[in-house]
Structures are given as structure tokens and as C-alpha cells.
């Protein structure tokens, strides 16, 4: 025993076993079923899109780390989440070169410029998408029908468009491959611009047009529940955001049922479920205090509904989350928890 070397260290001497890389890895696992559904729904174009954004994001982070003389941080898997998520929130037929631009913007200015993992003020994937929305407004709103014929053998024509070239028009192709009920427009677009409502059940199960991974509401909820059950995600933000979106759209619907769609439609359409479960919960860019999370979630739900129902855009999830991210530090400042025993402070 005299030869035993003992470490002197500080308490606690036990640890829960959770680690950042394990959490990030599990988020990636939780996203995989959604990717698989996306590929089933939109075919190999979706597969190529997700693979491209992921590879581009990982590569960008790796190169930037090396360029700044630091060890590569891709091993913590956070950039993989950014890459996969970015693929899931883009239209499945988006030209791949644009996806690469989006991935670069997401990681370089969106994450690494702030200092990498733990310091990004905004969700990097949404930064990438917001840039694409501003730079390529047509391509980012060119949706293709779900369950198109030959989707496992043929790419969507726009996927392989040349960089900086006009991508081929999709109308002819859509007319050729569409299966009866499915057109290229998303349910939110149909609702907003053509006043055609979609059955909430269809939305819930996800067989509709939309961004590559935003459609399967049920599947996304299950994947989120997995992370919450494993204590790798906080339940407050998705619950707050979804219930607030439901509640505010219900208020609009009750006030004018003819003009405003039902709250169930609002809940399961667009990217609300994916955004609330996987984007708004990005821990780095969201508040840390329990009260702050509720304020953050509720305000994002409200902003989403306001943009959708009163704004010019069909979808408002992205901007509402980015706005929520921007407000997070402020929310945290005002929503500090009340410490035990603070109400009756004793002078010492």
C-alpha cells in the first residue's frame, strides 16, 4: 500500500455520466428516423441533400479549426446535428451547391465566428437557412410533391443544378411525377394563398409536401420524447412553444373560423413541430432558467402564429426561433430563479 499513488481532487467525486458528446450523438440518433422518413417521402434527392449539408458542415468546422490552429472539434458531434438539421429544413429539391453555401454560412459565421460550441448566439442551422432564404428566395420556396413516382431512381431536376446558373423549372416535372392528391405547394402555402385546407391527420402522419424533414409530426414527437426521457433535452421549451402556438391559433380560429384555420392544422403544418422539438431546444441559444424557458417558448409560439396569420410569409417558425434566440440573454436576465430562503433576507 505504501506505493499507492492517490489523487487529491475536489468533490463531488461522482458524476452522472452524461457528457456533451454523448448528448450530441444521441440527438443525431434521434434525427436518423426523421431522415429515413424524409428519404422514403422524397426519394434520393433528400438523401443527397442531407448528406451534402452534413458533410459540408463537418468539413467547414474541421477546416476552420485547423486554420485557427486548434484541435478539430468535430468529435463533439454538435456540427453533425447542425448539418443534418439544415438538410431537414430545406426543400428536398434544393440545388446541392446552394445547400453547400447554406452549410458554410451556418457553421462559419453562424457558429465558429462566435467561438464554436457553447458560444453561438443563434441556432447555426437556422442562420444557414435564413441566409439561403434571403439569397435564393425562389429556390427555397420551390417545394416538390411527396411520394413522387420514380423518386428512388430519379433525382429532382433542380438537385444537380450548376452553381450560379438558373435551375431548371420544376412545373413540368411535377406534372409528370405527381400522384393524384399531392402538388408541390406546402399545406401552409395552400392555406394562405389558395385557401385550400389540409386534413390535420394527414399532416400529423406527414405525407405531404414541405421541407425535407419537417413533415412527420408524429415521428418527430416520438424522437423528441426519446431525448426528453433520456434527460438530454428539456421538455419545457417544446411544450411551451407548441401549446402557445395551439392556444393563440385557437383564439384566432374562434374569432373568425372562416378566415383562420383550425389550431390542429396550425400545430401540425409547416416546420412548427420540428422547430419546437429540435431547433428551439438548441441549448446554447436558449435560456437556462426554467421561467426563462417558458417565456421563450410561449413568445416563439405567438410570433410563429402572428407571422403565419398576419404576416406576408406562409411560414414563420424560422424567424420566430431566431428572434427567440436573440431575446434569450435578455429573458435570462429577467427570469433569474428565486433562491431558497430569499423572500425573508436576514441581515448578517
Amino acid at each position: 500500500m505504501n506505493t499507492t499513488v492517490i489523487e487529491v481532487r475536489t468533490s463531488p467525486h461522482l458524476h452522472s455520466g452524461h457528457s456533451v458528446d454523448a448528448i450530441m450523438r444521441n440527438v443525431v440518433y434521434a434525427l436518423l428516423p426523421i431522415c429515413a422518413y424524409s428519404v422514403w417521402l422524397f426519394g434520393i434527392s433528400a438523401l443527397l441533400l442531407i448528406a451534402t449539408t452534413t458533410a459540408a458542415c463537418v468539413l467547414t468546422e474541421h477546416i476552420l479549426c485547423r486554420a485557427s490552429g486548434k484541435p478539430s472539434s468535430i468529435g463533439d458531434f454538435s456540427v453533425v446535428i447542425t448539418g443534418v438539421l439544415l438538410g431537414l429544413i430545406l426543400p428536398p429539391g434544393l440545388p446541392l451547391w446552394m445547400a453547400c453555401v447554406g452549410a458554410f454560412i451556418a457553421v462559419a459565421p453562424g457558429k465558429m465566428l462566435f467561438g464554436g460550441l457553447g458560444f453561438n448566439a443563434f441556432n447555426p442551422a437556422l442562420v444557414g437557412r435564413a441566409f439561403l432564404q434571403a439569397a435564393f428566395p425562389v429556390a427555397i420556396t420551390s417545394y416538390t410533391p411527396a411520394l413522387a413516382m420514380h423518386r428512388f431512381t430519379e433525382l429532382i431536376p433542380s438537385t444537380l443544378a450548376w452553381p450560379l446558373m438558373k435551375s431548371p423549372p420544376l412545373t413540368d416535372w411535377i406534372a409528370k411525377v405527381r400522384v393524384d392528391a399531392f402538388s408541390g405547394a406546402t399545406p401552409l402555402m395552400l392555406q394562405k394563398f389558395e385557401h385550400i385546407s389540409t386534413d390535420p391527420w394527414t399532416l400529423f402522419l406527414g405525407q405531404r409536401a414541405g421541407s425535407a424533414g419537417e413533415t412527420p409530426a408524429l415521428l418527430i414527437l416520438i424522437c423528441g420524447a426519446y431525448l426528453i426521457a433520456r434527460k438530454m433535452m428539456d421538455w419545457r421549451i417544446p411544450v411551451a412553444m407548441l401549446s402557445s402556438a395551439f392556444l393563440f391559433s385557437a383564439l384566432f380560429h374562434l374569432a373568425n373560423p372562416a378566415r383562420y384555420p383550425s389550431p390542429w392544422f396550425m400545430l401540425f403544418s409547416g416546420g412548427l413541430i420540428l422547430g419546437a422539438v429540435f431547433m428551439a431546444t438548441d441549448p446554447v441559444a436558449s435560456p437556462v432558467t426554467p421561467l426563462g424557458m417558458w417565456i421563450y417558448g410561449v413568445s416563439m409560439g405567438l410570433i410563429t402564429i402572428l407571422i403565419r396569420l398576419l404576416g406576408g410569409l406562409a411560414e414563420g417558425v424560422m424567424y420566430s426561433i431566431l428572434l427567440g434566440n436573440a431575446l434569450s440573454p435578455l429573458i435570462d436576465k429577467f427570469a433569474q430563479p428565486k433562491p431558497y430562503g430569499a423572500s425573508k433576507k436576514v441581515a448578517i
Partner: protein
Amino acid sequence: MLIENITGKRLWRGVHVPEFKEQTCHLPIRRLPFAPMLVVPLSQHTGAPAVPIVREGQEVVRGEPIAEAGGFMSVPMHAPATGRVERIALAPSARGDLTRAIYIRPYASASQEVLYGAPQDIDRMTPDEIVRAVQATGVVGLGGAAFPTHVKLKVPEGKRIDTVVVNGCECEPYLTSDHRVMVEYPKEVLYGARVAMRAVGAARAIVGVEDNKMDAVAALKKARGAAQDIKIEAVAAKYPQGAEKMLIKVLLGREIPSGGLPSDIGVGVFNVATLAQIGELLPQRQGLIERVMTVSGPGVTRPGNYLVALGTPIRWILEQAGCTDQATSVILGGPMMGASIGSFDVPVTKGVTGILVLTNRESDTRVFPCIHCASCVTICPMHLNPSQLGMLARKERYEEMAAEYHLNDCFECGCCSYVCPSHIPLVQYFRVAKQTLRKAKALA
């Protein structure tokens, strides 16, 4: 069952830690032999050190006072074994610095029986006499804090205590010494509780025991019988329920004001091992010379609960209990709040609840930046914001931590470090911050 789970008394914050108690919780308390040299530090408690009343070379009898209290906020020391005072000199301590201690070499034939002492009638004593008698026993908080018990029994002017809370939670993993004390000495625990009730003038006592020790609850209930003055409550196990602030909140729903004491809200809190010692020593007018501690952990070959003479070097205990060569760290106390020691020559003091030998290496843990996952914020039992505090600590903005984020309310339970997926040593940051502020205040 479900209803009971929801409505039962429980701690809402905190963490479920693995218990690791099954190794030792069924093993009866056994007494260790005397070490060849016993080292009795003069400062084993919060407050002023004791003052030696023996000289080098003097013979002492087991149980005889060898140092007197150095004021009201201090307790006397008693000889743990019959033998000769070798010297009064510096000795290593768990904190790492050297403190004065009385070295006693027990005689080879020294008996474990305590012959020193004389019976006294506690029922006739006034509260003040009880306080003085408890001080004379040298008993301090045996749950780890080592705060002189008689000071807690002396109710401050203008305050009234209505309830004595008896802390039998033992929420730290591995430790089962309080558990064994409750199972084997329930009468002493209850007697000690009644002495405390008389001293503070409380009409009732509540014993809080975590529900992973139902045999202790049964033993206490059996010893109590039909008496109405002491309530025995099983509370759902969760760390850090054994912290007095938490236990009071769980049992009585009262919160100690920030910077205050339990007496501010009419409560006195005592650990079961402390009360068992009072119950045993006080009627015989004896002194505290040994204590029960758990020796456990993956690096111990014969884990168990041992009755150890105060002043026994850790080396001796580990030689008796067996220690594998995989040992990487030796902890005094529990794994959540205990301190790791740098020398096997550190002697056992009154506040040592256990000795743990761990076998994992910590040096290769990778620390990530804070990802704001909020785990620490949602589990902090004091409702602080460890995430924010940690970030301020990194920037050494200590004043801001204390003024705006309630740094001094943190009692270092370690929950935040335990859950942190980035492995940020939050509690250590807070300790450094508090120490720096204390030093700055002392210099100002």
C-alpha cells in the same frame, strides 16, 4: 402507491445518485483495535481549538479529558485509549495543513472498556445545565459538519424553538453508518432526541429517514412505542435531502432565510449519530472518544461499518479493512461532499462519517465549454443559477456572483458538478470564489 408517491414528502430539486449502500448496510458495527499511535487533533470542530490539559509523558486513562474547551464555541477532547502522551505537536489534517495534536501511544494491554465517568441525573437538570453537560461530553455534529452541538442546544435570546428535527437521511452514496446506528441504537437516538427537546424547549421531534432504510424506520418505531412526542417519517430518497435546509423544507415546509439559521424559523436540527452519542454518553458523564464510520468504496476489500477510536490514522483503518492497489483516491466523508486526502497519516476526527477508496482516474476527463443545457439550473436545490455563476467565475467576477447571483447561498452539495455534461468543476469554482471574497473582506 402512486398517490403516495405524488403526495408523500419529497425533495423536488436535487439528483438521484446511485446509492452503493448495499455493500455495507447489512453489516453490523464492529470495533477496530487501537492503532499503535493515536493522534488527537485539538481542532476537530468548528470554532476555537481545545486547550491541552495534559503534558508530554503523562499517563492518561481511556475517557479522561485531555484538553478543555477553548471558549463557548469549542469542546473538550478526551483520551481515546489508556496510554502515555508521547508528545503534543503538529500533525497532518484532512484539509492539507498541519494542526496541533496530542499523540497518545496506547498501552499494549489497553482495554476497550471505558471506566472513566460518573452517572448523572439528566431529568433534574435545567436547560442551561444540559447545555454545559453536553459541552463536557465533547460531542459535535457527527453528520460531517462538526459544529459544537451544545451551541445549537442553547436557544438564542428572543427566539423560540418548537420542533427538533432529527436527521437520519444519510443521502450521500456509500455511507451507511447512520443507518446502522439507527438500527442498532434506536433507544439512544430517541433518548438523545428527548434531551435535545428538553434543552431547546421543543414539544415535538420529527425523525426524517430516507425510504431506502425502512429497517431503520421500523427499529425507531419499535423503540418509540406508543409515545406521541416523536414522529418518525420516511421521506423519498434523493440527494441532498440530508442538508438541514432541505430536510426542514421537506418535513415542515419552512425555509431558512438566506444567511440565517434553523433557529430563525423555530427548528433545531441534529444528526442521528450525534443524538445517539449524547444518549449514550450524557447519563454516564463520559466523553466522545470514538465514532461509527463506513469504510467502503471499490478499493476496499473488507467494507463495513467500524467503531473507530478518534485519532486513529487512516493508514491503520485501511490496513484493517484492506485496500487494493487500484486505489486512486481516498475520500473522507461521502463522495458528493467529502474531501480527498493527500496523506494516509491523517487521523480520524469527530466529523469523519466514512472513508471511501475510489479506483477511477479523474485526470483524463475532458472539459467542454458550457452548452447552457440548464441541467444545473433545474436541479440546484437552492434554486441558484450555477450556469451563470460558472461563467462569471471563469471571468473572476466574484463580487457580481455574490451580489447578484446569491453565491453565498450555495452550500456546495455538488449536484451541479454531478450533472454537468461538460464536466465543468462548478462547485470548485464557487469554493474558490467564496474563499477569494472572504480573504478580500478580511483584508479590507
